[in-house]
Every structure is written in structure tokens, then in C-alpha cells.
């Protein structure tokens, strides 16, 4: 796959949740694309739909959720047209992998870490063999030995000391940072086309977080994985992302290369978010707040969702849905007034 093609394309994806007889729009016509080795930061606060979007790519949403429109194209193939079986065999844990915030939810506590890594390899490298061949113990033993070696090598690559001993240990014997590194090992071992990271460093100590992020960055570069990094922490994105998409109430309101977004934010919500940071504040003065609240998923209008909280809103904001303004080939803003907003 050549470097300039998109590894993953999301086109106008919309997702709803059905609760009782009400329908809430969690994600509304979201589009983005990622190339090989690129890190897309998906930023937004609680309720913006970023996690829903992430889980939807692997079709792991709860039963009352539905992807109602749009396309998800992975390396040219439409994910939504794949059967559940094909998705499970080829995509999950293979072409697209995921790291989530809570390591305890990712590692099975009753199996050793090594078994879990090993199982991944076994599942995805199943060969079709004849009945007689399956009795070839020597071949199987050799294959298992190679797999075990691969797992341990991967643990070493994630800078886990005494990897061969650690291979036979259980999740509770690892610290938080180490668990995340084990999960990272499992992710990169599959050498996925896309890696989805959902707040992987939240809850880790500052120094551990810095370390894990550095490691993560180097592995992304090495394996040229396309990454969707989901967080509400803009600081982390400024260190790890190539481009950032800001989500609000289910839509992407602004998208740009990371430096440009933070140097020259155009959407009122992006500006407000940046002003909220304590380091943006002037010592002694109040921090900027964003008045009001994110609208619930059942109360989302077709028009601009940020309008009730926007200090720059004008009449058109309540009358027509905003169109995507193209500031440059890589910088998009969803706002009627972005040209006049100061």
C-alpha cells in the first residue's frame, strides 16, 4: 500500500442509540481519513461521541446502537459490508487493534500474560491443514516455540525487563504502566493497519505516562501504524498527534494539523477549550469557562450544536446547518462565522 493512500476512511458516519422509544444521535456525519504512520488525535469532552465512534469501527457497540449511515473504508474495503465472521477473523485484533484506558478490562486475570499473547498469534495464524498433518507434533511444537519466542521478543521491545519470566506471570503482577506496555506489545505484534487508542494513559502517574507515550511514539514510527488517539487532553495530543479533529456533540467541528490547530484555532469551541487550560490563564485571573452544557443526545439539532454556548453566534446559526469551511487543504472548520471570529 503506497504511502499516500488512505489506510482508513470514515465517510459521513452517523450512529444512533435507541433508548426506550427515543432515538439519540451520538455521532452525526463524521468524516476523516488517516494515512500510513499518521496519528489522528480525536479530541473532545464527555459526551462528544469519540468513544462511540472508535468502538463502531470494530463494530463493538452495545445492542441498542446502530450505524445508520456512512462508510468505513479500510485499505479499500468497506468494513460495514463485511460479515461478523469476516470482521472477527480478519479485522479485529489483526488489521485494527485497540488499547483502552482500563488495563484491567483488557487482560484476562486468570490466564498468564504469555498465554494471552500466544493465543493472539495462534488465532490469527491458523492454517488449514489436513487431518494427518494436524497430528504432526513436531511441526506444532516447533511452531509454538517460534511463537513463544516472538512474544518474548515483543515484550523486550516494549522494554519489559526479564521478559521470559514475565511471560509466565499474571496481570496482577505487573504495574499499571507495565500492563499498558504488555497491551501495546499485543497490539504491535499483530502489526495492524490501524491502532485505536482510547485514553490509554489516563490514570497513570505523570512519569509513567511520559514514558509510555515516548515508547508508543517510537513504535508507531517503527511499524508505520496509522493511529486514532482518543483523548480529551489536548496536551498529550500536542505531543503525539500529527493532525487533530475536535469533536463536539457528535460532530467534528474543526480538523487541522496539530500545530496549526493549536496556533490558529478557528472554531469557537476549539478556542474556548484552549482557553480553559490553566496554563492559558493569567496568574491571578479567573480561567475561561464555557457556559452551559453539552446537549443530550436526544436533543440535538440539525443546526449548529454549539450555538447555545457560542459567544459569536449570529442569526444564521439557528436557521441553517453549518457547512464545512475549507481554510486550507488540511484545515477544516464547521462554522458559519469562522472568518469573522476573532
Amino acid at each position, binding site marked *: 500500500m503506497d504511502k499516500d493512500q488512505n489506510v482508513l476512511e470514515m465517510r459521513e458516519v452517523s450512529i444512533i442509540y435507541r433508548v426506550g422509544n427515543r432515538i439519540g444521535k451520538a455521532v452525526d456525519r463524521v468524516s476523516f481519513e488517516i494515512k500510513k504512520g499518521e496519528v489522528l488525535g480525536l479530541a473532545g469532552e*464527555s459526551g462528544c461521541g469519540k468513544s462511540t465512534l472508535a468502538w463502531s469501527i470494530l463494530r463493538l457497540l452495545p445492542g441498542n446502537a446502530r450505524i445508520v449511515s456512512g462508510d468505513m473504508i479500510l485499505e479499500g474495503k468497506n468494513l460495514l459490508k463485511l460479515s461478523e465472521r469476516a470482521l472477527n477473523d480478519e479485522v479485529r485484533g489483526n488489521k485494527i487493534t485497540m488499547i483502552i484506558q482500563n488495563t484491567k478490562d483488557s487482560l484476562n486475570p486468570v490466564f498468564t500474560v504469555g498465554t494471552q499473547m500466544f493465543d493472539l498469534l495462534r488465532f490469527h495464524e491458523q492454517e488449514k491443514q489436513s487431518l494427518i498433518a494436524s497430528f504432526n507434533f513436531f511441526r506444532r511444537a516447533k511452531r509454538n516455540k517460534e511463537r513463544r519466542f516472538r512474544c518474548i521478543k515483543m515484550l523486550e521491545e516494549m522494554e519489559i525487563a526479564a521478559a521470559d519470566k514475565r511471560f509466565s506471570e499474571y496481570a496482577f503482577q505487573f504495574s499499571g504502566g507495565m500492563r499498558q506496555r504488555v497491551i501495546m506489545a499485543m497490539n504491535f505484534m499483530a502489526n495492524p493497519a490501524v491502532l485505536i487508542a482510547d485514553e490509554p494513559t489516563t490514570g497513570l502517574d505523570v512519569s509513567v505516562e511520559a514514558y509510555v507515550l515516548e515508547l508508543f511514539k517510537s513504535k508507531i514510527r517503527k511499524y508505520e501504524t496509522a493511529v486514532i488517539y482518543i483523548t480529551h487532553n489536548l496536551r498529550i495530543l500536542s505531543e503525539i498527534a500529527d493532525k487533530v479533529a475536535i469533536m463536539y456533540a457528535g460532530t467534528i467541528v474543526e480538523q487541522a494539523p496539530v500545530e496549526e490547530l493549536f496556533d490558529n484555532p478557528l472554531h469557537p469551541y476549539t478556542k474556548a477549550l484552549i482557553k480553559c487550560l490553566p496554563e492559558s490563564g493569567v496568574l491571578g485571573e479567573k480561567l475561561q469557562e464555557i457556559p452551559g452544557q453539552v446537549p443530550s443526545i436526544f436533543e440535538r439539532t440539525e443546526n449548529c450544536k454549539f450555538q447555545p454556548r457560542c459567544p459569536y453566534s449570529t442569526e444564521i446559526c439557528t436557521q441553517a446547518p453549518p457547512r464545512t469551511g475549507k481554510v486550507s487543504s488540511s484545515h477544516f472548520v464547521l462554522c458559519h462565522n469562522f472568518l469573522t471570529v476573532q
Partner: protein
Amino acid sequence: MLSRVLGVKSEMVKAVDDLTFDIDEGEIVGIVGETGCGKTTLGKSILLLIKPVEGKIFFEGENILELSGKGIRQFRRQVQIVPQDPVGSLNPRMKIKNAIAEPLRAYNGMYHEKIEETVGNLLKTVDLSPEYGEKYPFQLSGGEARRVTVARSLALHPKLIICDEPTSGLDFSTSAKILNVVKEIHDKFNLTYAWISHNLHEVNYISDRILVMYLGKIVEIGKTSDIFTNPAHPYTQGLLQAVPRFIGRKSLTQKKVHLRGEVPSPINPPPGCRFHPRCAFRMAKCMEVEPMAVTIKEGHKVACCRVLSNSGM
């Protein structure tokens, strides 16, 4: 106003070891440190929720560890806590107005009308409308629940409030709101805060002085501006270096010091200086001798063997 020398020991873990520091009236002191450093234990011991094994804690000149019964009751009105998990600390079966009124009923024996008025005022102070009084904790967002616990902590007009990770788990815009509310209250009522946090940007914004803890010890203490512009202890330097920085904003520190490894378990702390296994500047002495605090500038103290030897002592 508050000072102590204390060691808290359980059978095997010295959570807080030989800690000495002061908090003056009206100050906001940030207590910073990572897992296992003892900051939460410290906060709880100031509230008399954990009893230190050794040492003294002086509150307004009186050793609170020698109090009993009535004395403790009187003390508890003056020191309150904003806990780390707001939803967990609010009784899910109590309406907000009753949760806030609880300390009023327990201590002041207030009657019905007065309570309603007081609760209404407290909610107003944290920028919540009075109708929030009728809600239950599950109906509140994280930020709102946090503000309710702040309101509750103010009910008895305390002098000192321990804030335990007040903005953890909150979005940035909600955090900004909490910080503003808390700062306003501090200025209005001349309160004193012990602000326990691992968020260094926040601590930089709100504290007057900072205490940096590591494995039960204070490694550095000083004015916020001093610590951030001139961190003396290698751990502080490494910590400031590790904090993710926002593009276009100045780095919190210029020094490039990387912290290696992870925080060791407090059950078996390293001998000598507890930080030495991870320290890029360690010397032979660091493995044998626990460093004493050295004053490098007025109000700025650091406990480091290297600084000790550099200052020629």
C-alpha cells in the same frame, strides 16, 4: 497555623516518614507526588482519619493528636475535605440538600428554615441554582457533584480545607469552572487549602507554595514560582519535564532530566536517598545516607545529597 512532625507506620509500610512542614493561614499549599508517595495518607492524617504513629500535628498552636472527644469534635468543624471521588462520597439515597445539611444538623443543631436558607446560600456560592437541592447524586454530572462536595465542605465555615485531587476525572472546561469556584471561595472567606494533586499545571496555577513528595518523604518545598523556574531536586526536575506540554506554551522547566523506571513499592523503599535508583545524578553517598533538608533560598528547601555537598555543608 498548621505544622507537624510525623511518621505513619503500618506493620510493613512507612507511608509517610518523618515529615515536617507548615501551612500558614490563607495559603494554598499544593501537595504533589505520584502513586505511593503518601499524599493521600497525609491528607487523611490531618483530618484525624488516620492516626500517626509518631510525631505531632499542630493546628493553630494545639497538638490535635492529643485531643479527645469534645476536642476532636471542635477540631473537625475547622478542617474539612473535598474528597477525590465526589459521587462516592455523596450518599446516593440522600437529596443534595440533605447531604449538604448533614454537617449543619450534626454540629449546629440548626432548625428547618435556617438550614434551607444556608443550603441555598452554599449552593449559590458554588454557582448551582437552588433547585439542585432536590436532586439525587446520580442526576448530577461529575462537575456538579464536585461542586456539591465543595459546598458541603464549606457548611461549617472551616479554616482549612483539604482538597484531594479536586479535578481528577473532569474535562478541562469543567475543571476550569471548579478552579474558578474554589479560588473565589478562597479569596472571599480567607480559607486555607491543602491542594493534593498530580496535575502540575493546575498546581502551578492555584498554589502559593508547593510540597513535592516521593515515597513518604518531602523532597522539595518552596514557593510555586521558585519550584517551577528553578526545581532543585532531580525528581522535581524529572516530573516537570515529564508533564505533557501544550504546543506554543512555554515548557514548565528548561532542564532536560528524564525519570527512569517506575516508583518502587513503599513496602521496601531503597536505602539512603529513596530516589537514588532513578536519579541521573546519583553519587555513592546517595545510597547510604538519607539527605537532610537544605535551604537554598528563603522558603525553598530541598532534600538531596548532591545539593547538600554542592552547598559545601
